[in-house]
C-alpha cells in the first residue's frame, strides 16, 4: 500500500465523503449505516487497486452499490456490534417537502434491496434499464421486472409516481478525484 494511494483515499473521503454518504443513505436509510458502507467501499476500492491508476468517485459509488446489494445488510448483522438506537439516525426534514421525503423514505424501506437499488439507479442516477443491468450484473429483463415491482409498490404507498426525467450513460458519472462534483 503506497502512501500515495492512502493520500488519494483520504482526499476523496474528505472532499466527497458527505456526498457519498448521502448516496449510500438512499440505500440504507440510516446515516450510521451509510457512513459504514461508504468507509467499507473506500477501503475495498483502494485495497483492490494498489497503484493501478486513479480511483474515481464512480468506482466508490459502484462499490457502495455492490456492497449493499451483495448482502451488506446481512454481513453487517454479524459485524455490527453497534447498539441500536431506534430511528435515531434517520434524517429529519423541516420544510414543506418534509412529508413527501418522509413518505418516500418510508416507502423505500419497504422495498427489497435489489428493487431499492434499481429505484435509486433509475430515479436518482437516471440510468437506463440497460445501464442498471450492467451495473448490477443482471439481465435487462430482470431489472425491468424489479423496476415494475418497485414502482407498483411505491405507487401503492405514495400514489402516482412521475417517470424519471431521462436517462444518462453511466460513464458520465465518473468523476476523477479532485474534480469535486458528482450527482
Amino acid at each position: 500500500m503506497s502512501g500515495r494511494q492512502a493520500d488519494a483515499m483520504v482526499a476523496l473521503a474528505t472532499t466527497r465523503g458527505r456526498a457519498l454518504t448521502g448516496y449510500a443513505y438512499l440505500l440504507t436509510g440510516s446515516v450510521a449505516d451509510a457512513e459504514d458502507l461508504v468507509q467499507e467501499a473506500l477501503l475495498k476500492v483502494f485495497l483492490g487497486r494498489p497503484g493501478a491508476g486513479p480511483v474515481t468517485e464512480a468506482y466508490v459509488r459502484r462499490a457502495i452499490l455492490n456492497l449493499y446489494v451483495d448482502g451488506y445488510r446481512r454481513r453487517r448483522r454479524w459485524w455490527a456490534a453497534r447498539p441500536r438506537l431506534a430511528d435515531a439516525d434517520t434524517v429529519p426534514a423541516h420544510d414543506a417537502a418534509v412529508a413527501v421525503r418522509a413518505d418516500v423514505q418510508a416507502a423505500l424501506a419497504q422495498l427489497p434491496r435489489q428493487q431499492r437499488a434499481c429505484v435509486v439507479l433509475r430515479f436518482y442516477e437516471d440510468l437506463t434499464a440497460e445501464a442498471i443491468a450492467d451495473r448490477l450484473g443482471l439481465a435487462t429483463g430482470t431489472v425491468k421486472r424489479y423496476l415494475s415491482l418497485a414502482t407498483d409498490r411505491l405507487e401503492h404507498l405514495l400514489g402516482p409516481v412521475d417517470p424519471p426525467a431521462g436517462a444518462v450513460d453511466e460513464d458520465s458519472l465518473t468523476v476523477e478525484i479532485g474534480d469535486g462534483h458528482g450527482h
Partner: protein
Amino acid sequence: MGTDLSRALGEIADAAAHAAPDLPAADLRTRLVRRAAARAAAVVTASAAAVAGLGLAAAALLPAGTPPAGPPDDEPTTSAPAPSTTPEPTEDATDEPTDGSTTDPSTDPGATDVVLGREGVGGVAMGAEDPMPALTDLLGEPDVVGPGEGLHCTEFAASVARWGDLVVTLARNAPELATGPDRLMGWWVVGPDLPPGVRTASGVVPGVPMGDVLALPGAEEVFWGVNRRQGVRASDIFHFAAELGPEAPVETVAYGVVDCR
C-alpha cells in the same frame, strides 16, 4: 401530478449529506494501511500452508529469523502460522483469573498472542461466564458492545463485542442456555483488521483465496452456508467464501458453540 421521485431522492440524499459528519479520514488511512499489511501477510501465510500440506511444522513455514507465532493450538486442523504481524508472545503473567472464566494471564492488552479457536478466545474458554472482564484484559476495551447475533441457524438473544474485525458473541439465552449470565459463545473474524497479537488457529483470515483454505488439513468438508455461500468446516472453524470457487476470497472465519450441525 404524481410524486417526483427523482427530486425527492435528490433532496433526501442532500439532507443526509448535510446531516452526516465528516468521514474519519485519519482512521480510514490507518485501517487501509493495516488491512493492506494484514492481507499481504495472510496471502503469504495461507499460500505457504497450502503448499506445505499436512504434517509440516508451523515453524518450518516461517522465514528465517521470524519468531514463532505464539503458543501452539492443539487443534488437529491447525496448520498455518499466524500472519507475520503477530507480535512475540510475552511471558508476563498474573494469577488472577476473572469470575469463573479461564483468562489469559497477560494484563497487557495486545501484547500476547491470542489464538481464536474452538477452545475459546485466547485463554478465555468457550462457555465461560461473564467473560467481558477477561476479554477486556486480553484485548483492551472493545470498540463497541451491543445487541447482535450469533451463528446462523440459531435464534438467541446475544450480545456482541467488537475489536476491529473481531466480533465476539456472548449469549444470554441460547437454546442450551435459557437463563443465566452471559457466556462466551463464539467468535467471528469479518476482516483482516484484527487487534495486535490476535490470530486464527488455522491462520486464515478474510481475503485469502478459498482454494488455499480447501487445501488446509481437515478442511475437506464443504457445505453451503447462509444464502448459498460456500463454507468449509474443519473440525472447528467455518470459512465462508463470497461465492463458489477456489478464487473467491474468504469472507468470514468463525466458530460458535451453537450452529446448524
